[in-house]
């Protein structure tokens, strides 16, 4: 054992020296991409020309990898498109993605690692808790942060942080309003993930708004991340309560299971979800007929027929052999929002991180972006986007507008 500890100390010393050297190199080269640690994508851009450096943080491994990798891939598509079209203000964009494994501490580590790379703007983190933790850092560094999908209310509490997606309270309230005004049901059941910030945030606000909308919540049942395969009890309670509609403020992975289990139970309510449900038709081998009639309030549907969506989805499928979900759409729009704000402000890559942040922050409230998730998206200084959720219904295995 002694030998191991000795060997380990040597390894440790070597690692530390190596990373310190890397640190020196990057600080020495003052912003240009000379960091030894940044291999891979960075190698391409190591020429002397100036670029805007955008960092992406999200879960690329672990249980939530589907969301993080879609964000990273979609942001890359947007960056490649922009660069092919001549870049921004005459400069190219450069992108680097880091993994946070859905862990707030690792998200901060990833942020620091990207800072060493020379990141000037952050697109991330993908999930609420991670985004919130990173926002403490970006606030201290005065780094511009745009989270594609950090939906918790507190994510944008600092003025340097903006988001592309809706906030949780907004989605919960909007869903309840939609169900109320369209008189979809008088008795509603909820199944939500109590261990997930996004899901429990929407559920809480949905219940609060339900009282104003004249329908009754007959069952409100939770599951947790460790217990997300068997939904027989939750469905049974909704069924026993006579729910005509089951509200699912959850992600499509669990929703696809819930739909299948409801079917085997012989329970056929209307299923109503939020943006997390988008992607359910893309689950490989999923029997889409089970989702027939399900409704969701989402800004993005991969099956939409407008040129922008068709183009994006086909490029994504070609490159990554998967159908992108709404996380990816948010990230794609996020890159274009950054582009618009950079153009508006006219700030150049050689300005410091803090100057870029101040200028882009100011420009964010003046731009309007036509993206995948909405047309004419605008932002106010609070960091919230102004866009309206679209309600879509699943009909014959495809999304159609519900209006």
């Amino acid at each position, binding site marked *: 054992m002694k030998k191991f500890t000795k060997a380990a100390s040597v390894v440790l010393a070597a690692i530390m020296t190596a990373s310190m050297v890397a*640190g020196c190199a990057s600080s020495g080269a003052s912003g240009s991409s000379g960091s030894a640690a940044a291999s891979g994508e960075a190698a391409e851009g190591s020429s002397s020309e100036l670029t805007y450096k955008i960092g992406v943080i999200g879960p690329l491994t672990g249980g939530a990898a589907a969301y993080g990798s879609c964000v990273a891939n979609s942001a890359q598509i947007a960056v490649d498109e922009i660069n092919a079209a001549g870049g921004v203000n005459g400069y190219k964009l450069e992108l680097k993605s880091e993994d946070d494994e859905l862990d707030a501490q690792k998200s901060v580590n990833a942020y620091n690692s990207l800072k060493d790379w020379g990141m000037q703007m952050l697109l991330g983190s993908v999930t609420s808790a991670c985004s919130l933790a990173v926002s403490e850092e970006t606030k201290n560094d005065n780094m511009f942060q745009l989270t594609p999908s950090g939906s918790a209310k507190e994510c944008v509490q600092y003025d340097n942080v903006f988001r592309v997606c809706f906030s949780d309270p907004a989605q919960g309230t909007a869903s309840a309003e939609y169900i109320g005004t369209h008189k979809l049901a008088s008795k509603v059941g909820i199944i939500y993930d109590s261990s997930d910030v996004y899901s429990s945030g929407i559920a809480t606000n949905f219940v609060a708004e339900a009282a104003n909308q004249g329908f009754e919540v007959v069952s409100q049942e939770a599951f947790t991340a460790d217990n997300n395969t068997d939904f027989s009890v939750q469905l049974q309670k909704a069924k026993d309560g006579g729910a005509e509609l089951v509200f699912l403020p959850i992600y499509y992975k669990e929703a696809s299971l819930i739909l299948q289990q409801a079917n085997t139970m012989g329970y056929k309510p209307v299923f109503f979800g939020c943006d997390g449900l988008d992607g359910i038709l893309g689950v490989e081998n999923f029997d889409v007929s089970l989702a027939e009639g399900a409704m969701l309030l989402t800004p993005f549907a991969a099956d939409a027929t407008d040129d922008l969506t068709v183009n994006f989805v086909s490029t994504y499928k070609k490159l990554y052999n998967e159908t992108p979900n709404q996380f990816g759409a948010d990230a794609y729009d996020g890159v274009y929002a950054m582009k618009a704000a950079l153009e508006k402000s006219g700030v150049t890559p050689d300005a410091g991180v803090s100057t870029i942040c101040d200028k882009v922050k100011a420009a964010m409230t003046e731009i309007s972006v036509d993206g995948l998730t909405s047309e004419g998206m605008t932002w106010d200084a609070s960091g919230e986007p102004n866009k309206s959720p679209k309600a879509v219904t699943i009909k014959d295995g495809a999304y159609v507008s519900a209006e």
Partner: protein
Amino acid sequence: MKDKKFSFLKKKENVTYGIVIAVWIILEILLKAGMVSSHLEGLLVPMCYYAIVAVGLNLCVGILGELSLGHAGFMCIGAFFSATFSQIFKDVLPGGVRFFLALVVGVVFAAIFGFLIGIPVLRLNGDYLAIVTLAFGEIIKNILNALYLGLDSKGFHVSLTSVLELGMEPDGKTLINGAMGITGTPRDANFTIAVIMLIITLVIVQNLINSRDGRAIMSIRDNRIAAESIGLNVTKYKMQAFIMSAAIAGAAGVLFSHNISTLQATSQYFGYNVSIMILVYVVLGGIGSIRGSVIAAAVLYLLPELLRGLNKYRMLIYSIVLIVVMIINWAPAIIEKRQELMMKLRKGNRKNGTA
């Protein structure tokens, strides 16, 4: 003369302190000189708290000889109680005092839970004990995940369903918000505080090992029946080590929660897989070797971070490294071969010397 001068190095625990302090001094100088990458700078505190909890678990696994798979749960207790305390006194107390008191709160509550859980757990043996500690870790995590705690002029409000159920006055403040956990904990921890805590932990554990109590605990590990037959109070000593181990894990939790502004009781922070990860540090560093735990925790926490350049292959490489290192270090056949090799080298040297 020469021997006397370096006699303090003969005690192996002094070497451990020396390594920690030397690393700290070097890093502090480099930090001041701005020569440490911000990535590495951000890793320093997590390295320390995982080293602390690894030492705590080593006390349980290596010295007491009982396998615990629930130490992440004690970390969770320490993190939540101290962060709640800091939330309440955020604007009342100055940073240093607040952190010290939060540390006391976190450690005391982790110790209390260690005692409460120790009562049933220590009656069991071996794998049964392991599974029950795992169960307790999951119970703690599950309950904290569903817990809502608010404070207003009328005092504390607790609910297990939703924040609306708290029924707080308008001046109320939500302290623990269910799945969202605690947000906005003041970042009172820094590298120096973390190193001081690590050294205090090392001193406490090393002194325990070298004390009468420590020898009693190790004798129970080696042969419980023999220890009992010479009149040792087995339950008392087992409990003592277990509580201390839990309290140390709690201290690590305090550092955890005061190094990052958000705290959630979810699997990736406090689940059984985290307990297992800490166990990996302990076993790889050497069961019963306190210094090994510190080094292994630091290296293994750094490894996946430094492999970031490899993107999606990094966890794959980490797992392969783990398997290979385990086999090289522990396989009896390989240890034998290694010793033979060392013998040959030594012989070779001697031959060269005489020739």
